């Protein structure tokens, strides 16, 4: 081979009229997975992406496990500065928690719409989910500012640091979820989702539900169980 390197800039765009016959994609390949080979099927029957998401979430459990343990260890270490009992506004947080829970429901609706190949409703429900998530996040930011104004900075005491770290990490996860949701909506709109849309949506759904469940644990341990 003389020179197999091709400078992309030199390559004349030919358009999409390339000979189609020997480009035939084997049936079933169009599943949007990153996996290789002719087989559509996988050894476990679970799709690669889904399995990967499950594994990732398994790993995330330990991440939150570590953060929650840190919080539980330090929740009462605050000398005579502010602590949970002076700060929590349970009704408010319950309301935002409820919003987040509801977003799981809308996520389910989104996934179902995607399974029906109903793009319009998929977009709708994903947007609603993202909005609910955003509402939850807004609540959290509001809550943080209230705490901050009352005098609980990130470094005020150990309780504060571990609280903000834990809840902040969860918030970051919600934000990532919202970005994924909105990006998917955008890509659905412009029809740029590769492969199986239903599965893409389902995957985001898995992630979203996980983040919700983690919140339930956090809400119970951090807010409801008295320090």
């Amino acid at each position: 081979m003389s020179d197999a390197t091709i400078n992309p800039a030199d390559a004349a765009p030919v358009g999409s009229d390339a000979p189609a016959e020997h480009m035939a994609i084997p049936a079933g390949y169009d599943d949007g997975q990153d996996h290789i080979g002719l087989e559509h099927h996988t050894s476990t029957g679970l799709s690669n992406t889904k399995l990967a998401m499950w594994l990732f979430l398994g790993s995330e459990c330990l991440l939150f496990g570590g953060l929650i343990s840190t919080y539980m260890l330090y929740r009462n270490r605050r000398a005579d500065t502010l602590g949970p009992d002076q700060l929590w506004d349970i009704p408010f947080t319950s309301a935002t928690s409820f919003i987040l829970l509801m977003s799981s429901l809308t996520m389910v609706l989104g996934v179902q719409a995607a399974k029906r190949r109903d793009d319009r409703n998929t977009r709708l429900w994903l947007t609603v989910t993202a909005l609910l998530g955003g509402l939850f996040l807004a609540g959290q930011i509001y809550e943080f500012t209230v705490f901050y104004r009352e005098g609980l900075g990130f470094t005020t005491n150990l309780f504060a640091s571990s609280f903000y770290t834990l809840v902040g990490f969860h918030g970051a996860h919600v934000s990532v979820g919202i970005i994924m949701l909105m990006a998917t909506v955008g890509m659905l709109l412009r029809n740029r989702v590769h492969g199986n849309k239903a599965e893409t949506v389902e995957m985001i759904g898995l992630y979203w539900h996980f983040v919700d469940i983690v919140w339930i644990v956090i809400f119970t341990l951090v807010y409801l169980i008295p320090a």
Partner: protein
Amino acid sequence: MAIIERPTDTPALAPSGGAPAVTPTRSYGYLRRPVQTTGWRSWAFTVDHKKIGIMYGVAAMLFFVVGGVEALFIRLQLAGPEGTVLSADAYNQMFTMHATTMVFLFVIPMAAAFANYMIPLQIGARDVAFPRLNALSLWTFVFGGIFLNTSWFLGGAADGGWFMYAPNSAVPFSPSNGVDYWTLGLLITGIASLVGAVNLIVTVLNMRAPGMTMMRVPIFTWMALVTQFLLLFAMPVITVALVLLLFQRNYDATFFEVAEGADPLLWQHLFWIFGHPEVYIIVLPAFGIVSEVLPVFSKKPLFGYPFVVFSGAAIGFVGWGVWAHHMFASGLGPISVAVFSVATMAIAVPTGVKIINWTLTMWGGKLRFTTAMLFATGLIVMFTIGGLSGVTHSVAPSDTQQTDTYYIVAHFHYVIFGGAVLGLFAGIYYWWPKVFGKLLNESWGKANFWTMIIGMNLTFGPMHIVGLQGQPRRMYVWTENRAGDGFFNIGFWNLVATIGSFILAVGVLFFFINVWVSRKNPPAPADPWDARSLEWMAENPPKEYNFERTPTVHALDEMFHRKYEDVGEGDAHDYVKVATAEEIQAVETANRDDHVHLPSPSYWPIVLSFSLPVIAYGIIYSTLLVIVGLAIATVAMFGWALEPPTADDSEFESPEGGDGGEPSKELVASV
């Protein structure tokens, strides 16, 4: 390259000559896809698991030399009393970075190199499940490692020891940026490990060739799978610890600040919950390698394959319940100490199973002592010594005499060097022809092995003595006053260890010499070792698509069973060779798959990886850089999301055919 098209009955694709290649015609995301097949671009943007594996290996070996040279400095300093080669500060950085480099930048990536290269081949797949993520892991590790090591030139490296106990890692006690580099560097390489773990687990679970049930999966792949699970669950734990430390050092949090009521033991728990599984992460891949090598050179199947598999899994489980054996002296209270002590003893049982099964594999075999086999046998012997000193640590009251002395240093170098490193070298010699198509020189190989064995025993053997004579570890000097005299004299044995370490270095150098002298070796035969597992059904080196057709698996040791038949009657066995590897490969070629879709190279993994050290430098020096890094990351992620993993057919100009009528496999490999 994206599409490998071999319609056997289709005529030449294009009449003209020239480079056979496909050309992207539409850009995805922001840029056209890379298409180079030679030169650095073909490596930088590749998603081929084999190229990635090779790059993993090369980078890891470079870091091995870095870590090794650091070790030599350590040994020089300790050769005599009141050493003056290094200052106290430099010494502390030296052993911290030695350990960090060896563990995180040599052994784990080297194991990842083997896993990347071999797993798809061993399970009959064409690549890993997520090739782009694979490239991401590689580059994240490479950039993370470089980032970590730049600290040497930017104000000093980390100096708190590789387990970086709090509160000694806090700013007042370690005011240079070293610990920040360490924290961020490990966060970055942690991402590499995590992504790699997800990828490889999915690959093993999902992409096995037809017929390859879990109990037919080659043992190396099994052990690598357990390793990846350990990584998957261990990495987030150290991530938490590192994040807390990062927040403490850079954002004034007080997670480990005693004055604020913090508990320094939190760090120890978090670190060792990661750290103990970590030591099995270090050794299990090597166990997998020797479990491949020993049967091949004994001409027998692995004795008790299910036992070896289950003991590996058992190690993976029990490994989570023993972390506090690193904390026997830290005042946990007698109940915890007793529990962890007993649990630690329990883990010796599944490890013992492996030693016993390897020995029984060789028992009654037909042993050929090639270099690979020598390394594998060396592992059994050396690891046993290290394992048994491990058992003496597990006896908690004795450990209070041993912990933080050189006796521990002796233990873990025997299990790490004598276990993991010898195993990795066995793998290098065994699979070299597979990867590079040439054999390594056996004479140099044997010289390599024996110098390394002699060197390691001279280096680490005496550490048992000086440790039990009470020499603590992590001391930049030792003093004549506490050295004693006579046979167990600390001074003498320290000198021996230093001399040994240089012999060891010569041994390592022999390896590099071997690589050099072997570069012009003739092509290796298809099956140089009379091997047993599936990867030997592919060519040496394998084509980009690995297998001519997806193999169907009928047995554990598939390759052996294709080559040999037992023609003995009843209990008498008589194995005759019914096919050579060349013949088997020829059959595969004749029946090759027509359509093979491979993922396309991509810019985005390396770009995304690159953003991480930028962000990290930013955290240390300037928020502006953080923003730049985040911007790069965002661009890369959107580019990634908008780019299909395998380029669409319509994106490509037709491959311009090279040599006319005959469908060219070369074409396939080169585009």
